[in-house]
């Protein structure tokens, strides 16, 4: 294993009686973009603030390269941070905001100017350099915030739900832009979000957090295809989570020894009820459509079969079978798609 760039060991944090971070270990390689994903209150933002030095952990160490930054004040950690609320300085122009960190570090005027021009070009805001933050849109403000934290060339960039305050369209374009910039600068980055779609699109690696623990980490593909626990399965997508008994009923055979199983909604195929007899090679179950919702390119059915409620996704391509609410259908199930889940906390 290669030596990691940022290394957190046993980070612990209590707020009163509640444990917010429970001995969290995390290693990040240089140039990697790691996302901390989890529901609100899972400790992801607290972990980020511990790295920045804005919250003091009760225990554990934070190594950045050879330096133990856990003992340094925030301004000596060489860590940049972008907040959900932008936190731009309202009394300074866009240019002055970006220049601020360089000024504090005593860079001379010429250096400041060339660096600022460079960053303004990077975030594509050259024509707004004399504007004040309140004259910019949310997306533009967040780009200024990004440029401002990059100006001082931090070793690690922390993004604390940077897109949550923006509307859906800007959010999508800005996340691509952030990923682009991160790749170009090979900036080691930690991205905090509660949005699984966002996490899947921007990350090299995702750490899913729950109750102050990292419950699973891996590449986006890995996490999506192989959730280890029920929590991850539910969080990563609209996985059907079935108890062993339910899975047995649905597939008509005893399925194994795990307490619960996950089944991807797109692995179930919806067929006309009459087709049930024709496919003997696979398990076909009868069901009834309860509800249908069209999510753009996907049609999501809620189907009840053998007393089990299933979510089934089908491509909205006009070719696959379209049932209607209340109609009887046949479900084609593939038992190799059934994923055994570990118990929570195991």
């Amino acid at each position, binding site marked *: 294993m290669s030596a990691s760039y940022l290394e957190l060991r046993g980070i612990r944090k209590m707020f009163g009686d509640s444990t917010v971070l429970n001995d969290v270990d995390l290693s990040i390689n240089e140039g990697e973009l790691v996302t901390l994903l989890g529901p609100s209150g899972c400790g992801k933002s607290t972990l980020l603030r511990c790295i920045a030095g804005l919250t003091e952990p009760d225990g554990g160490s934070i190594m950045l390269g050879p330096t133990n930054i856990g003992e340094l004040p*925030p301004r000596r950690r060489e860590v940049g941070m972008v907040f959900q*609320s932008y936190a731009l300085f309202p009394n300074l122009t866009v240019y002055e905001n970006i220049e601020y960190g360089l000024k504090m570090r005593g860079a001379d005027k010429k250096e400041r100017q060339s660096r600022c021009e460079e960053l303004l070009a990077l975030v594509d805001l050259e024509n707004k350099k004399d504007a004040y933050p309140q004259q910019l849109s949310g997306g533009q403000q967040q780009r200024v915030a990004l440029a401002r934290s990059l100006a001082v060339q931090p070793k690690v960039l922390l993004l604390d739900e940077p897109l949550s305050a923006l509307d859906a369209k800007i959010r999508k374009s800005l996340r691509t832009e952030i990923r682009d910039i991160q790749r170009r600068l090979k900036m080691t980055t930690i991205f905090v979000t509660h949005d699984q779609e966002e996490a899947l699109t921007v990350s090299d690696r995702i750490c899913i957090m729950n109750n102050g623990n990292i419950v699973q980490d891996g590449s986006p593909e890995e996490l999506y295809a192989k959730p280890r626990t029920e929590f991850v399965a539910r969080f990563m997508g609209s996985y059907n989570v079935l108890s062993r008994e339910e899975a047995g009923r649905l597939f008509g055979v005893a399925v194994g020894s795990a307490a619960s199983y996950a089944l991807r909604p797109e692995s179930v195929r919806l067929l006309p009820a009459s087709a049930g007899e024709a496919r003997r090679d696979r398990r076909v179950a009868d069901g009834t459509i309860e509800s249908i919702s069209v999510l753009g390119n996907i049609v999501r059915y809620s189907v009840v079969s053998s007393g089990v409620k299933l979510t089934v996704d089908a491509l909205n391509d006009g070719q696959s079978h379209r049932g209607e609410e209340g109609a009887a259908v046949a479900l084609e199930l593939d038992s190799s798609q059934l994923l055994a889940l570990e118990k929570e906390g195991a």
Partner: protein
Amino acid sequence: MIKSRAGWSHRALMLLLMVYLLLPLAATLLYGFAKQWQTTVMPESWTLEWFGEMFRDLRFLEALWTSLYLCAISVALSLAVMLPAVFVITVYLPKWETFMKGIVVLPYAVPGVVAAVGLIRAYSGGPIDIAGTAYILIGAYFIVVLPYMYQGIRNSLITVSAVELLHSAELLGASRKRAFVTVILPNIWPGVIISTLLSFSVLFGEFVLTNMLVGGHIQTIQVYLYRRVGESGHLASAIAITYFLFILALSTVLMKLGKKMNGVAEK
């Protein structure tokens, strides 16, 4: 820009309110210039005599000056203490906020007369014998404006999200002191100016505490006004109007100053 479209009922209500607020002032103004005003709606004859008499009275100018510098010192002192204190509490010790909120409403809870008697008792004799001096007055004034200063500064800090601004500045390499001066102070300045102005006006109009604490020794404008009301209503009106105009001018100057200092941000 949103254009406000007030209906006639709104306008009428506003007009009524303005009349209600300005009528006493207008009447006082007229009375200050009136020579004869007994049985008619408007004064029968006019004179500048009352204003003349007031400005010829050295005690008036003296009282005005006394009020001005006592209030200025008190407000300056309050600003010097409260600004860093509220900043530290809001940003670093938010747990203390509940305690502070309780403390700052105390001046409202204790009636002026009770406070004055208590203060005189506590500070006449004993180690700190300052009853009847300007010191006790400045001390009392400090307490009187505490709620205005605390709330004003705190609200400004919260409005600009001072904690996050400070964190951003620190992560960009600023020391806490430098972050305060370069980022926090310029942004809360307009709010602080307003609080200062409000505090100043409150103190300038304060009578009960002042009269009881130092009434016999130091004449502020309110104490002076009180003395002269008995002599002539016309003269008192002239004094009240002059006092009002003085406060108005002072407010305008301070507001302009506040806008100018904030001009960098607003432009």
